[in-house]
């Protein structure tokens, strides 16, 4: 009993020192490669988003509907998230739209999400504060000829120490006038986590 209490007394300062050191340990912050391969977890990540946006953009730019038309006007609709996890699908469509716009081959009409701001600005310019000759006119907005919409789905399987996630992103371009699908493509991603 005496020896136990002695060893306990000896261990206490060591424990205290260890706790103190852990408390003083500094977190290290470093910048990383924003385009780097991210494999922290097997949930949907930045590499997946970038790969999907790049793959879809390149495919659409090479489609007949874009190459044969003179800068067709498109609008972006929702990408439905059918996976079991939270994914900001607007981040995917924003990246796709930005890449397409930068290519100079496509134009985008205001989408439903930005419509309210557009109408408010139009109405504001109709006020007496603005020069009538230079103010934006009501009734001159250009409607989209095509709409982009898509889905993201996933299949998750887990057994013992292995977790497998399969994502499938599907994007389609629809002709608003006649309802025909003019282009479609998909991107598949598989991520596997093994414990240990």
């Amino acid at each position, binding site marked *: 009993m005496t020896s136990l209490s002695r060893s306990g007394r000896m261990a206490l300062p060591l424990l205290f020192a260890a706790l103190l050191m852990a408390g003083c340990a500094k977190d290290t912050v470093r910048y990383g490669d924003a385009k780097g*391969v991210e494999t922290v977890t097997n949930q949907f990540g930045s*590499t997946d988003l970038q790969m999907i946006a790049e793959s879809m*953009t*390149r*495919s659409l*730019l*090479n489609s007949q509907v874009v190459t044969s038309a003179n800068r067709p006007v498109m609008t972006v609709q929702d990408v439905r998230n059918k996976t079991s996890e939270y994914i900001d699908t607007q981040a995917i469509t924003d990246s796709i739209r930005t*890449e397409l716009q930068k290519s100079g081959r496509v134009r985008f009409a205001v989408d439903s999400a930005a419509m309210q701001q557009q109408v408010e600005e139009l109405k504001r310019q109709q006020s007496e504060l603005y020069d009538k000759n230079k103010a934006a006119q009501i009734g001159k907005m250009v409607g989209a000829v095509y709409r982009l919409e898509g889905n993201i789905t996933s299949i998750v399987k887990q057994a013992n120490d292995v977790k497998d996630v399969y994502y499938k992103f599907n994007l389609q371009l629809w002709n608003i006038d006649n309802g025909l699908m003019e282009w479609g493509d998909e991107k598949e991603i598989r991520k596997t986590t093994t414990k240990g």
Partner: protein
Amino acid sequence: MKRIAMLSVMFALAVLTGCASKPTPVVPQSPQVAHGCPVGNARVGSVEDLIAAKVQTAGAVENVKVNEIQCTMQNDLLRIDFTLANNATTVRRVAYRFDWIDRNGLKAWNDDSWKPVYLYEQSRQTIVGLAPAATAVDFRLVLLDADKKR
């Protein structure tokens, strides 16, 4: 008399102008190509030379090599087909990206994302890349070892 002399001088001038040899039009030099890929002034006599001119690595990439590369124009975009070969007896994971270059040798586009590739042991895989815009007329293919912990 004076009028006749003037007229003859004018006539001679007109004839001379008409006969003056036309300046040779400057023919723009067509860019050097090998296997369809733009190579600029690099000496490319074989596929190996082309790979050496176009492929770079970010750090060492052991047992994985590009062993074929070919380019073509798809509409007005540069399309690159290349084959990755895994010579190892184990599965290898690498990542690749393209650096796009414009007509003036400058960066033509934002950095591509790294695209992971899963290569089975002793296998080959053909990958297709497409330029993001017509301004991207040249490229460098960069490989990265994705098995390596960083």
